[in-house]
C-alpha cells in the first residue's frame, strides 16, 4: 500500500516536469473550445498563432544553448535587428534570397562569436559583454539605416519575399532547426556538457569540460537561431527599422521560462521548452483576445501566470533536493 503511495508521489513529480507541455495542450483545448463557441475561423486563427510565435520559437530554441549554461544574452533582439538590416541590404545589392539568408545567419553568428570570445579572453561573465554588445549593436543599426539613405527604414521589395512569406515555409524552417537543435542537445556531447557546466561549473571543470569553449559553441548556436529569426523577420515584415525585433529578447526569456526551463540553466534544461513556452504564450494571448480582455488586464494575467509557472517549477525542484 505504502509502495503504491510512493510510486504515486514519484509519478506525480515526473508529471510536474511535464506540466508546461500539459499546460500547452490544455491551452490549445481551451482555445479550440472558445473559438468553436464564438464561431471563429479556426484554421485562420491557428495560422495567425503560428505566424506570431514561430520567429520567437526559432530564436528561443537557439537561446536555450545559452541559458543552459546559466548565462544570459541581453543583446539577442539588437543582434537580430542588425542581422536583418545587413541581410536586407545584401538582398538589395544582389537580389538573391539565398545570399540574404547567408548574410543574416553569418552576421548573427559573428555577433555571438564576438560576445563569447571577448568574455573568454577577458575572463568576464558573458552577460557583461552582451550588455556592451547591446549598445554597440543599437548604434550600428542606426549607422546602417543612415548609410542606406532611405529615411528611417531599410526595405526589401515586398514582391521579393512574398513567395516565402507563408506559414508552411516558416514551419519547415522551424522544424528543421528544432530537429537540428534536439539532435545537438540530446544526442551529441554538447547538450550533456552544457547542462553540466550550468549545473555545477566547478565540478564540470574537474570533469575535463572547457566552459569557455562550450560557451562559444552555445553562443554560436544561439546566433544561428537569431540569424534564421532575422531572415524570417524580413519575409514577414520587409520594412526594417531600428525598432525591428525590439521585444525579442524579453519574449525569449518569457518563452523559455514558460516552457518550464529554469532561468539558472543546468541539468533540468530542456530544448523543447522554448517552443512549448512560445506557443503557450501566443495561445494565451489569443484566448484573452477572443474573450475581449482589456490589454492591460491581459498583461497582468500573463504576469500572474508567469509567476505561477516559476513557482511550480521551483516547487518541484525544492522537493527533489531535500537532503537525506
Amino acid at each position, binding site marked *: 500500500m505504502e509502495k503504491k503511495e510512493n510510486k504515486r508521489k514519484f509519478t506525480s513529480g515526473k508529471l510536474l516536469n511535464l506540466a508546461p507541455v500539459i499546460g500547452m495542450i490544455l491551452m490549445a483545448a481551451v482555445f479550440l473550445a472558445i473559438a468553436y463557441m464564438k464561431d471563429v475561423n479556426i484554421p485562420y486563427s491557428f495560422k495567425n498563432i503560428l505566424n506570431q510565435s514561430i520567429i520567437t520559437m526559432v530564436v528561443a530554441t537557439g537561446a536555450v544553448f545559452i541559458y543552459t549554461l546559466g548565462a544570459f544574452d541581453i543583446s539577442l533582439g539588437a543582434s537580430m535587428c542588425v542581422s536583418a538590416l545587413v541581410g536586407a541590404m545584401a538582398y538589395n545589392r544582389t537580389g538573391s534570397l539565398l545570399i540574404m539568408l547567408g548574410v543574416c545567419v553569418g552576421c548573427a553568428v559573428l555577433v555571438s562569436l564576438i560576445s563569447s570570445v571577448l568574455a573568454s579572453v577577458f575572463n568576464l561573465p558573458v552577460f557583461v559583454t552582451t550588455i556592451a554588445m547591446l549598445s554597440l549593436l543599437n548604434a550600428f543599426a542606426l549607422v546602417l539605416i543612415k548609410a542606406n539613405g532611405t529615411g528611417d527604414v531599410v526595405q526589401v521589395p515586398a514582391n521579393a519575399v512574398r513567395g516565402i512569406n507563408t506559414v508552411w515555409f516558416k514551419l519547415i524552417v522551424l522544424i528543421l532547426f528544432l530537429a537540428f537543435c534536439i539532435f545537438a542537445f540530446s*544526442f551529441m556531447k554538447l547538450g*550533456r556538457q552544457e547542462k553540466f557546466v550550468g549545473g555545477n561549473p566547478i565540478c564540470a*571543470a*574537474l570533469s575535463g569540460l572547457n566552459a569557455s569553449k562550450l560557451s562559444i559553441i552555445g553562443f554560436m548556436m544561439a546566433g544561428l537561431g537569431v540569424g534564421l529569426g532575422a531572415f524570417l523577420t524580413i519575409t514577414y515584415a520587409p520594412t526594417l527599422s531600428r525598432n525591428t525585433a525590439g521585444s525579442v529578447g524579453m519574449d525569449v526569456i518569457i518563452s523559455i521560462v514558460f516552457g518550464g526551463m529554469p532561468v539558472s540553466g543546468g541539468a533540468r534544461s530542456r530544448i523543447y521548452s522554448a517552443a512549448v513556452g512560445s506557443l503557450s504564450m501566443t495561445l494565451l494571448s489569443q484566448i484573452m483576445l477572443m474573450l475581449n480582455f482589456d490589454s492591460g488586464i491581459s498583461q497582468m494575467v500573463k504576469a500572474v501566470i508567469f509567476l505561477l509557472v516559476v513557482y511550480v517549477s521551483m516547487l518541484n525542484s525544492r522537493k*527533489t*533536493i531535500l537532503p537525506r
Partner: protein
Amino acid sequence: MDTIVEIRQMSKSFGPTVALDHVDLTAYGGEILGLIGENGSGKSTATSIYAGMQNCDEGEMLFRGEKWNPSSMNDALKKGVGMIVQENGTVPGISAAENIFLGETKEFMSGLFVNRKKMIKDAQDALNRIGADHINAAAMTGSLDFQDRKLIEIARVMTGSPSVLVVDETTTALSQKGRDIIYRIMQEMKEEGKCVIFISHDLDEIMNKCDRLTVLRDGKIIRTFSHDEFEEGAIKAAMIGRELKGSYYRDDYDGTVSKETVLEADNLNLSNQLKDFSFSLHKGEILGIGGLSHCGMHTLGKVLFAAEKAESGTFTVNGHTVRNEAEAMKYNIGYVAKDRDVESLCLEASIKDNIAIAGLDKFAVNNFLILPKREKQYVNEQVESLSIKCHDADQYVSTLSGGNKQKVAFGKWIGRDSEILILDCPTRGVDIGVKQAMYQLMYRMKQEGKSIILISEELAELIGMSDRLIIMKDGHLAKEFARSPQLSEADAIEYMI
C-alpha cells in the same frame, strides 16, 4: 535522566524510496547517543527532521515532553536544537562572521545599519570559545578550506547554546584538531546535562564517545546497544544484517610494485602548500599520502589533476606534460575530490548524467553520437558494480545518501577505466560495508596494474591500503614509509606534527 528528545513512529519517503519507516527514538539529558547504520539507513533524515531541516510524512516529535515542530533550522536552534550537517553548510560569498550570525543580523542593527564591527567581534569570540581562534571572523568564507568552514558551522551552532546537538558525519571531514574541538564540545554538553546525538561511520570513535548506540537499517531501528553491550562484531552485524566476511583492508604486506613509473613529480611548488615536492608513482602501486589537514596533500591532488597550477616544478604522466583537466583525462587520470558536493558531483543532475559526463568519449559513437542505449548500459554497469542504492539511474544525486553520492563520484572515474586514480578522502562519510567494498575495489584495480594516489586523513586506511606511504608536513615530504606489518599510526604521527 531527563528525556529530551522523543521521536514517535516517524516516517519519511523520497519518491519511491522509504527513508524512515515508523522510527521511534529517545535521547536523554547527560548522554551522547550514537546513531550508526549503512549509507541511506535514515540517520541523517531522522535527525535533520528533528533539527528543522525538513518535515516528516508521519509521526510525532517531542522536545522535553512538549510537542516539537520547528519551522526551520534557525527556529530549532533558537528553541534549543542545533545540528552540524554532513556537507558544507556555510555560504561562501559572505564573511565568517556573517555565516555565524546568519539570519540573526537584526541583533546587530544600529538604526538602519548593521554594526559589522560588533558582529565580527562577537563572531571572533564565538570562534575563540570553541578553540578555532586561528580563523579570522572577518575572512570571506569561500577563501577558507573545508575544515575551517566546518568549524564556522560549529561556532554558529554553539552561539545558540543548544540543549540538543546533532553532529552528523562531521568528524571524518576534520583533522585531529578539528575532531578534538567537537569531542570537547560533546563532552561539555554531556556534563551540563544536555544531549548529543552523534552520527559517525567510525566505529571506534562512536564506541569511544557514546553512552548508547542505536543502529538503523533501511529506515528502521534495528537495535539500541547500552554501553556495556558494545561489541564490534554485534554492531556491524546489526548494521548490515549479516557478518562482514573477508578482510577489511588488504591482508598482504607485499609492497613491491612494477619498476615502470607512470607519474613523476619534480620539485613542485605552490605558495605555502607545496614546497619542492617530488615523488614518483609506479604502475600497480597504491601510494598513500597523509598528514594534517593543512599539510598540502589536498592541494597536491588538485595539482596532479592539473586543476591547480604549480608555480614551479613539473609533473609528467607517462612522459607527457599535463596542462589542464581535459589533458589529465586524456592521459587516463581520474580525480575524486574531497569536497564531494561541490567538486565531484552536480547535485541537481541525475546519477546517469554524473557518471556519464566523464565517460562521454568512451561510449559515444565516434566520440560524437550519444545513443541512449549505450549510455544506459555504461551507467548501469557502474550502478550495479558499486551497488548504488537508487530507484533508477535517472534519480537525482541530491536525493542520495552521502555514501551513495560518494559511490557515484567513484563510478564516474571507474567507468572510464582510469589508469591513474587520485582519490582524496574517498571513504569520507561511507559506511563500513561500502568502505570494505571500496578497499577491495582499490586492491583489485592495483592488481589490474592501475595506480592509485590515496590522499587521506585516516592513518589506519593509509597504512592498511598503501604500498608506500608519504607523510607531508607544511608542504614538504616529511617521511616515506614502505609497506610493513610493523608500521603503526604512531610512527606516522611522529612526522606529521
